């Protein structure tokens, strides 16, 4: 039984030059207590596909497909109902805690207001819950933290506060969009460990969006690689990252500095640049940058289909093990 099941998600955003397709048929499932990692370059539709679920896209965007969350359909749900749901059962943490926290309200106010709004408890109970949450995310001295303001905390602590607010109503799914990108590695490690502890302790499923395959590898159970608004490869973390089968996944991994690699061995960058939305090549969107492309890749969009231990969208499948 999955917590979230997304099928055929397609998002078109209005731009001055006409509507462009940013997410083009995305399928995935998130299971209970699972960290579902989504990786891809900027512009691959990672964030937009999440905003679509929460109804946070600009007016006049069109969203097609289905996203079932706890037996309810999120796509096409009235805004009011969706707003009640998101924040309570479904929460999101963004990259930049500076902008997602209110600078003029005390931490206590931001935590309790949220709890009172969604759970309808009284002031005292809300305060108890706030203290509990601050302890949960390991903010030192929770009692005094309640009376402080976001600017009095460091970047890492602010991200912990944002996570505390997101967890306030005991959501079943937390969407974390690049939650550690703005942080130092030492602080990032702390946040990754926190997320890992919370999902075990609270039966929380996490969708982790990141461009950092190291982050993905350390926390995610299942990974999904996005390219140009589509999923190109998806499966258990170990299989996908240790034995990538899509040429794009392989190329992304080859571009990283490897601890064991010989020095002076140049990193293998992917030739070309990711296509701009609205200028997605026909066929497999990766074919202009792919060394393995064949005739078919130029015109036929490969379907994401089961391929052994994973799902793969590639006509060639050059790295399949015999």
């Amino acid at each position, binding site marked *: 039984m999955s917590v979230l099941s997304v099928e055929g998600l397609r998002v078109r955003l209005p731009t001055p030059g006409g509507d462009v397709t940013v997410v083009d048929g995305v399928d995935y499932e998130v299971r209970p207590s699972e960290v579902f990692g989504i990786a891809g370059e900027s512009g691959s539709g990672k964030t937009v596909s999440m905003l679509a679920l929460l109804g946070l896209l600009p007016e006049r965007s069109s969203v097609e497909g289905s996203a079932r969350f706890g037996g309810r359909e999120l796509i096409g749900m009235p805004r009011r109902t969706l707003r009640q749901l998101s924040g309570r059962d479904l929460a999101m943490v963004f990259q930049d805690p500076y902008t997602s926290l209110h600078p003029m309200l005390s931490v206590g106010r931001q935590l309790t207001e949220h709890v009172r709004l969604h759970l309808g408890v009284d002031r005292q109970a809300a305060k108890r819950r706030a203290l509990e949450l601050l302890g949960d995310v390991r903010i030192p001295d929770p009692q005094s933290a309640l009376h402080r303001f976001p600017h009095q905390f460091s970047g890492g602590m602010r991200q912990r506060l944002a996570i505390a607010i997101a967890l306030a109503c005991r959501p079943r799914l937390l969407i974390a969009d690049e939650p550690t990108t703005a942080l130092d590695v030492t602080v990032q490690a702390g946040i990754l460990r926190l997320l*890992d502890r919370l999902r075990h302790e609270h039966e929380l499923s996490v969708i982790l969006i990141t*461009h950092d395959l190291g982050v993905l590898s350390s926390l995610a159970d299942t990974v999904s690689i996005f390219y140009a608004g589509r999923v190109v490869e998806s499966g258990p973390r*170990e299989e996908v990252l240790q034995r990538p089968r899509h040429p794009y996944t392989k190329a992304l991994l080859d571009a990283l*500095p490897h*601890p064991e690699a010989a020095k002076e061995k140049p990193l293998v960058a992917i030739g070309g640049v990711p296509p701009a939305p609205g200028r997605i090549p026909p066929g497999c969107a990766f074919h202009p940058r792919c060394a393995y492309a064949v005739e078919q890749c130029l015109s036929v969009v490969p379907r994401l289909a089961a391929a052994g231990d994973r799902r793969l969208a590639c006509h060639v499948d050059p790295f399949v093990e015999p």
Partner: protein
Amino acid sequence: MSALELHDVVVEYEGRGGRVRAVAGASIAVPAGRIVGLVGESGCGKSTLARAAVGLVPATAGTISFEGRTVTPLKRRTRPAELVRLQLVFQNPYSSLNPRRTVGSQVGDGVRGVARKARVQTLFELVGLPAAAASRYPHEFSGGQRQRVAIARALAADPSVIVLDEPLASLDASAQAQFANLLTSLARELGVGLLLISHDLAIVRHVADDVSVMYLGRIVEVAETQPLWTNPAHPYSEALIAAVPRPDGEGVLPESLPGEVPDPASPPSGCRFHPRCPYAFEPCPREEPLLLPLAGNRAAACWLQEPGATPVQLSRPGVVS
């Protein structure tokens, strides 16, 4: 002798509660043709040190020299011609390029003499951009390409040293890889010395020849990259390395370093790292260790290490070499 040398540099800012020492006596040398990495958490003073190195902020004490000449703080007067060969590339190529001028004309600003157009084209090719890109505007480029334009503009001054402040921070993996390769070729083929400031240890490890590790205004360890990575001599270096998540698919969480960089306005007594150090012992809170040379052309500021001796192997559990 190194092209760029900073010796015991102190940089103080006027803060609300008095003077704040962002850099509290740091030395670093960048020889021609070498890539020197400078790493540390945010707030450790690495960007301030970079700015002081090129004269963007005045040093309160210490000496900064470039090719034997003192680097003077930038004022309203034209910078002496000999200091122009020391260049800086900023973190965000979007805010450091003028959005209303073509990139070609911005790169051309730094070119002296005639045949400017031909030189601009050469510079674009050097950084891996098509010559035709010169007539475009910054918004027409991706982040990685813009950072290349910023490099081309620095190269226009025919520099012998370029200081790069977090040049890779906003780039995707593939763009980072391309950029890292470009940096290596600048050093190897053009003989430019690079001071690469970054919090991304994985990339620094890949491109840098030497690394300096900075903590709260001080350099705590200096070593060649490979020995530093496999056998860090300072507990802080060890913690930084252990915190890097590895893309190996093993699902191992990186080690976190408890606590935060303390306020530079009131640094801890003794060794500045001691409140966060898992190895701290009796002398650490009392007396500050000096950066002393160790065997193998390296140096560390830690009471665990014996000056002149082979560095003691640190053994924090969970650290992979």
